[in-house]
């Protein structure tokens, strides 16, 4: 688990993808996981929707990420339960490689949410009505840039919308400081060792 680029503030082009229940198979189809690698997966992002022909990579002009206003998007505004389904971290690696740093949705698949935090992508949960208002603002002005301040836990738009969001203190720290989670836990090694020693007495059948 390598440390990530710290994410305290971010401003970028926002793109709406308001379907509900967008699953990780849609974010990256299994057949696109061709190499044992976390790198270079951006091309495979949303492959079934993004390409009219996935083999030749001929684009589907109707898909929003193929429209010029959104090719540089870094903030994704999505429908409820984004990232549900398979645990494949490749979904997050593909989004990151494409350039996405922030995802806003009413709710997220829980494994996907954790995978985002560990890879330096900020998942923001906002009420459905807030998310829909953001999507409407983008559609009224394609290419609009939103700003996120993770320290203040605020998202702001040129139209003057200001949304405050919740995030756990642990996740916030991971993102803001770009921490290496394993190194953080290893600082508690003495605690872990003594816990396991006591647990071995309590539950000896667990240990092999």
């Amino acid at each position: 688990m390598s440390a990530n680029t710290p994410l305290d503030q971010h401003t970028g082009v926002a793109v709406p993808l308001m379907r509900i229940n967008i699953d990780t198979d849609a974010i990256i189809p299994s057949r696109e996981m061709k190499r044992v690698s976390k790198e270079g997966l951006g091309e495979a992002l949303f492959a079934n929707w993004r390409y009219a022909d996935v083999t030749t990579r001929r684009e589907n002009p109707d898909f929003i990420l193929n429209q010029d206003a959104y090719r540089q998007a870094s903030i994704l505004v999505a429908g409820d339960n984004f990232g549900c389904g398979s645990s494949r971290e490749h979904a997050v690696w593909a989004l990151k490689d494409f350039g996405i740093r922030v995802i806003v949705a009413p709710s997220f698949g829980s494994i996907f949410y954790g995978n985002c935090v560990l890879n330096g992508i900020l998942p923001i949960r906002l009420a459905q009505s807030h998310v829909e208002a953001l999507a409407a603002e983008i559609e009224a002005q394609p290419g609009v840039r939103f700003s996120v301040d993770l320290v203040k836990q605020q998202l702001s738009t040129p139209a003057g919308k200001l949304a405050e969001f919740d995030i756990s203190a642990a996740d916030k720290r991971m993102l803001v400081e770009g921490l290496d989670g394993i190194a953080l836990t290893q600082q508690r090694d003495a605690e872990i060792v003594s816990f396991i020693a006591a647990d071995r007495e309590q539950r000896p059948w667990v240990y092999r």
Partner: protein
Amino acid sequence: MSHATLVEKIWAQHRIADLGGGSALLLIDRVFLHERTGGIALQGLAAAGRAVRRPQQVFCTMDHIVDTFPGRGDATRMPGGTAFITSTRAAALEAGVNLFDINDPNQGIVHVVSAEQGITLPGLTQVCPDSHTCTLGGLGALAWGIGSTEAEHALATTTLPILRPKQMRVNFLGRLGRGVTAKDMILKLIGLHGASGGVGYAVEFAGAAVTSLPVEARLTLCNMAVEFGAWTGIIAPDDATFEYVSGRPYAPDGVLWQRAVDHWRSLASDAGAAFDREIDIQAETIAPQITWGTSPQHSISIDEPVPDPQSQPDEKRRAAMSRALAYMAVEPGRPLVGIPIDAAFIGSCTNARLSDLRAAAAILKGQRVATGIKAICVPGSSRVKQAAELEGLHQVFIDAGFEWRESGCSMCFFAGGESFGQGERVITTTNRNFENRQGPGTRSHLASPATVAASALKGQITDVRRLGRQR
């Protein structure tokens, strides 16, 4: 007087440190890996110069992209697939973890193997970079799916920082009707409350219709907790659980067995335990379920018409329904029964244990699948396959016109190898009916093994309860 839920009890027993804001550092008792997402975790760890802290408590199998044809080796039909197998094998051997390799008699789908080998025990914490790890909640373990990076953390430290989930209990009251299975129970729940109904929750399944389920069916019920959006699902362990676990290769025995069972008997929610949400479902109201669309929440009773988007007040849900109807080429207002199918698939971590194969074989015995139907059975593990063959079930499947395969995840998803094909309609015992999940353009209807077997015989979607009358 304690008022803790089952999940809270296991949580408290594993809490090493409070991390603030509802998060805790939890001890992880077992890590399971497979070649699709586990090899990359082992490699990432090695690349960072880190070791697996307790390799004896780590297990690895080959299931996701292995070939399921007889005589298989490392070659796969998936482009680039062999590299996943060989690199995972190399990393597993290097790290010294327990490995069930392709031709090991204990190889199989990760969550099937973990239960049948006694690797999962009640009250354990277990993780795997695979979303269906929640299956193992059926044994009373706290088991959940993680990403590859979290897997590196669990391997390196035997711990994970976790945000405490909210608590939900789903009570299935009363008795199930004839032809109704655990698969129908979970599809009914998701159909009623949506694919995001469980987001943020640990879900305990309870009630007479749950406690009367055999252990393998409990694994099916918990398997699709993730399709409900839940962090995980769990069922309190009982005598049936202990009987299931007893004598399995990795289960404790002798004096330790007795100590373990004494501990396990304390693993139930207390009478006064508080849940953030409770849902009651009368088991008698559950008919065999089938999905009509492209989300598990698009689930209906087999004798019910496909819903009409016009009756859905929510715009987003209405749009998703219309899109799903078009993808699936089914019509609102009409039942699915009678729609011709192209293929039938029995397999996956949801429904490919011995009891599932017996249920399907009971319907197939002495019959042939309809002309032109591609029918495939892929046992959940090599042990399941062996046990089925000892009972002669394989001959029932083969005589009925099913292919009888080696174990693996197989066509539960399309990895670039085998597929059912563009526009083909498949009735399947698997867990996901997403667009393109089983192949580009493939249309998947999720159902129980009995419903899949009955539909294969008729060549069309069939109500298993009416099969006798239709014949």
